[in-house]
């Protein structure tokens, strides 16, 4: 079994979907995404965490003349983002079951098409292939937001597209540059790793990758496309963006940026780290007074992703393992939060927290699910959020105590904006608008039930997930650190003499 099944099945499914009209498209899309999940789970059972080499590898000469190979595989570094993608897509499809979209078959085809692109990004071991996946994932979300989004969708989506596309152009330049440096002209990542570029070259490669990935995550101050896009996109689009797509930036930094330019990373590490940490506090404070629930959640997401970025940039086993598990956790939580907002706005046609209130009284089941998701977001122990944030903060702490102290403010500030939101929406007396709010029904219960179950299971027993990436992460950290040490010696020796 190779990873190509995982990559091509959603692509084929997307093509098939184009020919399925009406309501059946929904069901078909769900079915296909569940098949994909099943394929992934079968692979997961065969996956060997202790083996740090490429598993389920496919290595097909695509354009060998240009050194382009269809090289994809699964290892401990991408297993978690892959899992995240195959778990979230069926859930996201289920969240749309109460909506009636125009051109439903196109809508669902685009979701599955995007899934293929995302999986390609996560599993590609060839630079060119990685870039192709990166853009393939962008096209469907552009259409999803641009065609099914809110009132300002055209303007907002355009900005989102240009912004992230500009970033990815820099990344393309870096990839092409690396390709040209390889002795036998290849895009293979292991050759990129082996390049050992001089510092003044590394720093440009590092900068170009950082720009692309920082825009994608996004890291402060490159985040301003994000709240608008999340707010205007249709709910499923927001979930795809926040739940999965932003992990492309996190994953890219781990796989493509730091190991390729280790010494430049080491020299400049402080800057993006501080930006990420400033972003945590900055976005949290902005979230205090946001009225639109989706926009509030968008800023909360910037804060939480800032912590993931900080943990990975601290570059130690704790921080990186934290980033790994938190990619999954954040995906689960943010889809849950946006889904709750979808449920509310579907019924009440508003997401203005100041107009809501008392919903817990009329919809106790929604209130419980929402509370569990909120608690995971504020990283309460025995929810998945705690495992991630504890490791991330510990990782940052090992790098710099003060950074950890500032980043740690997230556990206070997060509680402020999340509980404020919960109170405004759920608690208090019902008003004319919310008095007739109906509690969740079967499909919604399934989605929220799965999300809450994942939150608690991972929170109580995270070890199986941590174990998946453990060996690969510690190997990668050691390899990069060894290179950094070598570079330092290399630089300091001539000075010594």
């Amino acid at each position, binding site marked *: 079994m190779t990873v190509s099944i995982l990559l091509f099945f959603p692509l084929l499914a997307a093509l098939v979907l184009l020919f399925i009209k009406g309501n059946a498209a929904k069901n078909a899309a769900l079915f296909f995404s569940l098949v994909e999940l099943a394929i992934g789970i079968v692979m997961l059972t065969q996956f060997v965490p202790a083996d740090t080499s490429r598993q389920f590898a496919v290595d097909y000469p695509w354009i060998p003349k240009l050194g382009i190979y269809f090289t994809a595989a699964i290892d401990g570094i991408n297993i978690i983002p892959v899992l995240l993608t195959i778990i979230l897509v069926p859930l996201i499809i289920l969240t749309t079951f109460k909506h009636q979209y125009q051109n439903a078959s196109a809508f669902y085809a685009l979701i599955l098409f995007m899934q293929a692109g995302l999986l390609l990004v996560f599993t590609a071991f060839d630079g060119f292939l990685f870039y192709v996946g990166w853009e393939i994932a962008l096209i469907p979300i552009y259409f999803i937001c641009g065609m099914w989004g809110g009132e300002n969708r*055209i303007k907002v989506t355009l*900005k989102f*597209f*240009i912004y992230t596309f500009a970033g990815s152009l820099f990344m393309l330049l870096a990839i092409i540059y690396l390709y040209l440096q390889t002795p036998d002209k290849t895009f293979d990542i292991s050759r990129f790793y082996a390049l050992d570029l001089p510092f003044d070259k590394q720093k440009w490669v590092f900068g170009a990758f950082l720009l692309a990935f920082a825009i994608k995550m996004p890291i402060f101050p490159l985040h301003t496309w994000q709240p608008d896009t999340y707010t205007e996109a249709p709910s499923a689009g927001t979930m795809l963006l926040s739940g999965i797509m932003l992990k492309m930036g996190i994953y890219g930094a781990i796989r493509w940026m730091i190991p390729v330019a280790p010494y430049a990373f080491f020299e400049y590490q402080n800057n993006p780290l501080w930006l990420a940490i400033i972003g945590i506090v900055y976005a949290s*404070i*902005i979230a205090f007074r946001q009225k639109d629930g989706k926009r509030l959640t968008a800023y909360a997401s910037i804060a939480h992703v800032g912590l993931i970025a900080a943990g990975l940039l601290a570059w130690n*086993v704790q921080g990186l393992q934290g980033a790994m598990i938190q990619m999954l956790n954040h995906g689960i939580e943010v889809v849950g939060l946006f889904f709750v907002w979808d449920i509310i706005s579907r019924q009440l046609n508003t997401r203005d927290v100041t107009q809501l209130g008392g919903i817990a009284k009329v919809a106790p089941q929604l209130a419980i699910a929402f509370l569990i998701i909120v608690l995971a977001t504020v990283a309460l122990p025995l929810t998945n959020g705690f495992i991630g944030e504890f490791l991330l903060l510990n990782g940052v702490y090992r790098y710099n105590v003060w950074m*950890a102290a500032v980043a740690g403010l997230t556990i206070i500030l997060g509680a402020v904006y999340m509980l404020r939101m919960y109170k405004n929406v759920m*608690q208090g007396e019902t008003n004319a608008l919310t008095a007739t709010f109906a509690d969740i029904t079967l499909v919604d219960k399934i989605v929220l039930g799965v999300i809450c179950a994942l939150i608690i299971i991972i929170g109580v027993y995270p070890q199986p997930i941590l174990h998946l990436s453990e060996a690969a992460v510690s190997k990668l950290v050691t390899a990069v650190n060894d290179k950094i040490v070598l570079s330092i010696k290399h630089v300091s020796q001539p000075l010594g003499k």
Partner: protein
Amino acid sequence: MDKYIWLIPLLPLAGFVINGLGRNALPKNVIGTIASLMVLLSFALSVGAFLQVKSTGAPINVTLFDWISVGTLHIPFSFLIDQLSSIMLLIITGIGFLIHVYSIGYMHHDAGFGKFFAYLNLFIFFMLLLVLGSNYVIMFIGWEGVGLCSYLLIGFWFTNPSYADAAKKAFVMNRIGDLGFLIAVFLIIQTFDSVAYADVFAKAGKLNSGNTTLLLITLLLFVGATGKSAQIPLFTWLPDAMAGPTPVSALIHAATMVTAGIYMIARSNILFTLSPVTMNVIAIIGLATIIVGALIALTQTDIKKVLAYSTVSQLGYMFLGLGVGAYTGAFFHVLTHAFFKALLFLCAGSVIHAVSGEQDMRKMGGLRGKLPVTFITMLIGTLAISGIPPFAGFFSKDEILAYTYVHSPVLYVLGVIGSMFTSFYMFRLMYLTFWGKFRGTHEQEHHLHESPASMTIPLIILAVLSTIGGFMGVPKALGGSHWLEHWLDPVIAGSTKLIGEFSLTHNTELALMAISFTGAVLALIYAYVKYVKQADIPVADTEERPALVKLSYHKFYIDELYDTIIRKPLDYLSGFFYKVIDKMGIDGIVNGLGQTAVESGKGLRLLQTGNVGFYLFMMVIGIIAVLVFSLYSFIKI
């Protein structure tokens, strides 16, 4: 016994799950029985564990599974039952059980009956984790978990927005402390390469007194304690927490959760003993909290608010005890306070129940005859908290004060003044509630009744414990043997060795006891004259009060102060960040750059606004070209 330890926390968790799922389906008596039974079974197991520790003298260690393991960091899900935690288990499950039984009567008419018991069971689960954990991270799970339950139960009647606000405030203020705790944990990991108590204490014991890292660790842990145990400056959530149902105030906000900070410090005593600076900070903060809490309690008119500030103040005594090295005394006060303060709250609940939900003492009075059991048990609680021998509070408070005297006579004097205030505000509460004439409406007077047996029996049991509880620690000066001191010896032996034996002649100790006893009696007589003889009922809110009374009545305006210096500036900053920095500043630059690109690109006719289709077109063309090219090379092969 070791095999069944995991059941101690799991039984209440099972109760939470059953009642949580069946909260609307199960009949009330079934819900109440399941919830109480689970806690009772835990209590039985805790007794077994206690007896085993007693007979073997050795702690029980149980490892359940590997919770978090990353790199060199290993955090097992493991429990430790030793002399300290075994007593805490008895208190949590024992008093917890009584309060569950009481709640069956108290909450009987509430629509959220099932939810209430589910939450209460969940609280017991987390509180048990807190004391059972054999490392700081498991303690932290319990620590934050009880904070969650506190949030849920303060906001139990969440349709009242001010109750929901009180819940939120409690959670957020606790979180401030929790950040301190969390960073302390990181520092512990860095310093000792472990979070397990056994490793940490063994390694810490080899460090010098005054070690800077230990100073930081202990200060940060103490920050955590100020949040959970409501000390200055993080105490203002506790009085607001009275928004929750009264049994919650008794269990969580008096007997158990709020003493978690004292438990944590007593548990880590060796770290603190080696950090004299922190010890002084703790003693001073504790003392300041005693005085501030007591001063506010002097003028409150809400019966639960008086008790809440009293709790703040009594917790201050426990911290004073810790700060002067009286670990046993502080823990002793945790135990006796759990008895008498749970009792006082439950009595207050019984009173509130009788007067149809009224909490304002200005509208009570003369309840002695109508509520005889409540009256007598509450009087016992009051005598205990006021430090009247032989009731429980006398022994524990005097032990703390005696150690304080050795440490510094100035602190001692302030401590005694605090204890006089205690006696005054508690007897003020008693006189206003039970003496004089009933001041409520005729309607309320008509309904006055003693509470049902499910409520009065727990009162009687707690009254007995408040009466005899002090005998577990009778000092040698009074001819006792101080059982508790011997019992806790294995836990605090390291600190005792460093601090040295407690040195005070028996006569001095007796003199100190006489002083605080006399002070308490004088205060209660003064209260009698003022509130019974002169019937000086506090004035209505609309009337002007003397400046100092006003200051106390309005809680020194501390909430208003925090609002002005923290909440409002942050909210202002939120708007400023959003509108000015984010929208105008950063996004302005981004849009400007975009505009410039568009303008400069116009010549090339490539980058016009709305021309994103062009990008897509190019990209699709590009991808197709690649595909065609690959197909071409494929065919050629």
